[in-house]
């Protein structure tokens, strides 16, 4: 097995082109190395992208944020400015793995592992985040929601890799929140999860909303009906009940060792409702930036 540690994106593109599908990108390695040790995969070439300076950076861009593909959870969460804009994404990112794993794991890695239960992905989808992809035919941008196409599979073409995730500028009185259900308190994988991003007007009415659900379908679901149930309301009882109902209806989970269909459908609606309340409190200045 060959280990490469290029210092530019071009070198990565060249290495991937030459490897002809036998290479894997190594960022934090928190999924890749585990899969290799478990004998699930045996790549011939590892291309480590952590030596590429711009992939380690967080930069302001057009009022939003560009997060390099090799930025770790710990680095992200130390940035009070981003966490103030995206407290929900910050808490989702922070839920990946243990403290040790936080020093390595990345948003792009979590996305490309393409697990329907990935914690940061519903939060990124709710945030309307956009991935920047570099490959043999140049650079393209694609909404995060369109990257996973099924468990373990992405829409990236051969030789392509993600260089950054872009989080758009925030309107005033906007906030997000993420909740997952696990039977334990830590070191576990979501049985169901919900990411919510909201914008309120001066009167506290919801003017924009995105609701994304995890672990209840082959990919993270963006539930338009759930968002529609919120927009134009003050996020009170009836709207929240409609939201939960929309989430239950949209979810198409499976029975497996982690939970049942009935359980996941019921709980995902509860999580979405609770996440809306947290995001609402944050957007209206009550407990802004405070983590659930």
């Amino acid at each position, binding site marked *: 097995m060959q280990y490469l540690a290029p210092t530019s994106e071009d070198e990565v593109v060249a290495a991937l082109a030459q490897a002809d599908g036998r290479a894997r990108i190594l960022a934090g390695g928190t999924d890749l190395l585990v899969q290799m040790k*478990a004998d699930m995969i045996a790549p011939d070439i590892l291309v480590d992208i952590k030596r590429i300076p711009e992939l380690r950076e967080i930069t302001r861009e057009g009022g939003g944020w560009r997060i390099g593909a090799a930025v770790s959870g710990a680095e992200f969460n130390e940035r009070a400015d981003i966490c103030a804009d995206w407290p929900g994404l910050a808490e989702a990112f922070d839920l990946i793995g243990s403290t040790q794993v936080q020093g390595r794991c990345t948003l792009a890695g979590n996305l490309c592992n393409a697990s329907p239960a990935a914690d940061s992905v519903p939060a990124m989808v709710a945030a309307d985040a956009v991935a920047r992809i570099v490959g043999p035919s140049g650079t393209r941008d694609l909404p995060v929601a369109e990257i996973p196409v099924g468990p373990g599979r992405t829409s990236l073409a051969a030789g392509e890799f993600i260089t950054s995730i872009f989080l758009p500028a925030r309107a005033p009185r906007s906030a997000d929140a993420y909740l997952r*259900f696990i039977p*334990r308190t830590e*070191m*576990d*994988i979501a049985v169901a999860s919900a990411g919510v991003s909201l914008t309120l007007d001066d009167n506290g009415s919801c003017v924009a909303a995105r609701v994304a659900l995890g672990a209840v379908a082959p990919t993270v679901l963006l539930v338009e009906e759930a968002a529609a149930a919120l927009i134009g309301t003050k996020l009170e009882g009836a709207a929240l009940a409609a939201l939960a109902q929309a989430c239950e209806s949209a979810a198409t989970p499976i029975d*497996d060792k982690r939970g*049942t269909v009935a*359980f996941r459908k019921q709980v995902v609606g509860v999580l979405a409702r609770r996440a809306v309340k947290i995001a609402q409190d944050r957007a209206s200045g009550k407990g802004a930036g405070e983590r659930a």
Partner: protein
Amino acid sequence: MALDEYEKRDFRVVGKRMPRPDAIDKVTGRALYGADMHVPGMLVGKILRSPHAHARIKAIDTSAAEALEGVRAVVTGADFPEIAPGEARNVRDNAMARDKALYDGHAVAAVAATSAAIARKALKLIRVEYEILPHVTEISDAMKPDAPVVQEGFVQENVPEGFSDNVISYHQYGHGDLDAGFAQADKVITRRFRTAATHQGYIEPHAALASFGADGTADLWVCTQGHYYVRQLCAEILQMDQAQLRVTASEIGGGFGGKTTCFIEPVALMLSKKAGAPVKLVMTRQEVFRASGPTVSSEIEMRMGMTKDGRITAAEAELHYQGGAFPNITVQFGAMAAFACYDLQAVQTRGYNVLTNRPKQAAYRAPGAPMAIYAVESVVDELCQEFDLDPLEVRLKNAARKGTKASYGPTYPDIGLVATLEAAQAHPHYSAPLGPNQARGVACGFWFNFGGDTSVSLSVDFDGSITVTEGNPDIGGSRVSIAMMAAEELGVPYESVRAVVTDTASLGHNEVTDGSRVTFAVGLATIKAARAAKREMCRRAAKIWGIDEDAVIWEDGCAKPAGPNAGKFEPLSIKEIAAKSSRTGGPIAGHHEVNAEGAGVSFGVHIADVEVDPETGHTRVVRYTVFQDAGKAVHPDYVEGQMQGGAAQGIGWALNEEYIYDENGRLLNPGFLDYRIPVASDLPHIDAVILEIPNPGHPYGVRGVGETGIVPPLATLSNAVSRAIGRRMYELPMSPPRILKAIKGG
């Protein structure tokens, strides 16, 4: 029973919280665990395992693996000699399949190679031709007359008719007239319970390094709870004299009963024998889950009658346990332990052991008792609710005490259940206010405790320091407790004593570290060995003084003249006697060998407060208190640790832990991600209240404390959750989907 050992005394060392001697090595990494052993020329062993739950092995072609560069040996079931029926043969057939693979993960071949990569490659070159057979993993399926039979030839004569040959043993206990007892009750209920198979969850995977010499002698370094038993099993399996096999136990990263037998050791020895080089085998975590020894799963029917003032008039239980593809006696322990907490006029338990296509169970902390007592304590709680009675009052009313004839036969001597219940009742936890969606559960627990074969040697070194040589791996702090008991008995500072766990060639036989026996039995033998050394030191002092040895007594760590008539001599300390020992007859040592009896049963009571999220079924343990009789707590930190550890494991068992199989009999969750033991943040601080009702069978009153703590949590949690949600739970684990279904009326 040896019930005359105890003498009341004021302790000088015992009962204090001494620094543990192994702590620094363990936190700095100097301690040597099973996988840390390395010897020159060592090969890497790997095992090929069956992907099928039940399959006939029609052929195994190892030629390609053997031809691979770097492969030094390949072993299959055909390499092992035929031996007589019995546990060694069962262990052999579990360590390496012969005609049939009996469960998903059953070993079918093994290789030794010069590197791990080559060994892995070699495994992929082994061709096994399987004929897949119908399998059975659930108890009720396995008992049906037409069920696929896992293994023939194990059915004992007393098993009632009407079942498949998977039902191999039957055990019945009890006394009194059940019909008359039930007739006296104001309410009789019959309830069915199920518990899932759980794993001990020790951190250190099994590891063994075997080195077979050309002269037929062999050495084995292994992570185990009992290296003498490993020697006994492996010697029989490899058909060699026990004396030719020396086994050395490593430090142990947890066992909880799961390391009381062999899984990979015979394979490591056979690989080494064939390769002519040392071979190290280390299980992966996945192998630990698939092919070590989880505990049994159970299906239990429980019937109990109670008067409206809370007197249990009669009770009976039928216990069905499965512990995988081989025989075991766990259901017998369950049938004996079920009603051990109560003074009952009419009681009966009937236990059935059932074979299934699952891994061969091993002991797990109080094996067999937690599930049986879960069912008993659940029906007691339900009847308390029925009559609106205080659950601790009802337990006090029915509690076993001195003179009670236990449901499993014996009449109890001094026991601590009533004192433990009263301590729980008086504790502030029991009357603390509860918040919304919260409820409180209580339950009792019991374990027999074992004694058994024990050897200890104690040497008084020339500088007066003391080495205690014992043969039980230190799994719960036994070295410190044993050193403390030696220091206490000899009257020397604790710091001058070192307790060492030695190999099988250096000391007489020692039973496995199990049954909470070590602090009791090894402690007893240590005290007796120290007494022998003291007698010898009195003789040496007599010699130095030129007086009769009967005129010397031992007091405050010194030899002294027995009285004014013995002569006027300054007391001689151990240091002084030891310094002269070469000139007074040679080195001074004491030793003691015993099959220790009088271990002293142990009782506990647990209180838990839980909060259940009514929308998700998630349970949070808000507060937890353990009350347990330790006889005498030699080292209170360790005793509290045992009580807390048992509670933590029991909480995991109650809430989330389970072996999950798919329809093909394959284990779906062989890893800590999906086999959910509690993490630290899942648990509150567990308060431990130690009671000390001296055990008449030990010189210092010590009882075993290691196991009782895992028995009450299952029912404690189930009773608390049932009260919190207003519906009775009858199945473990109480995972959130199961609780939410109960809340929604499913």
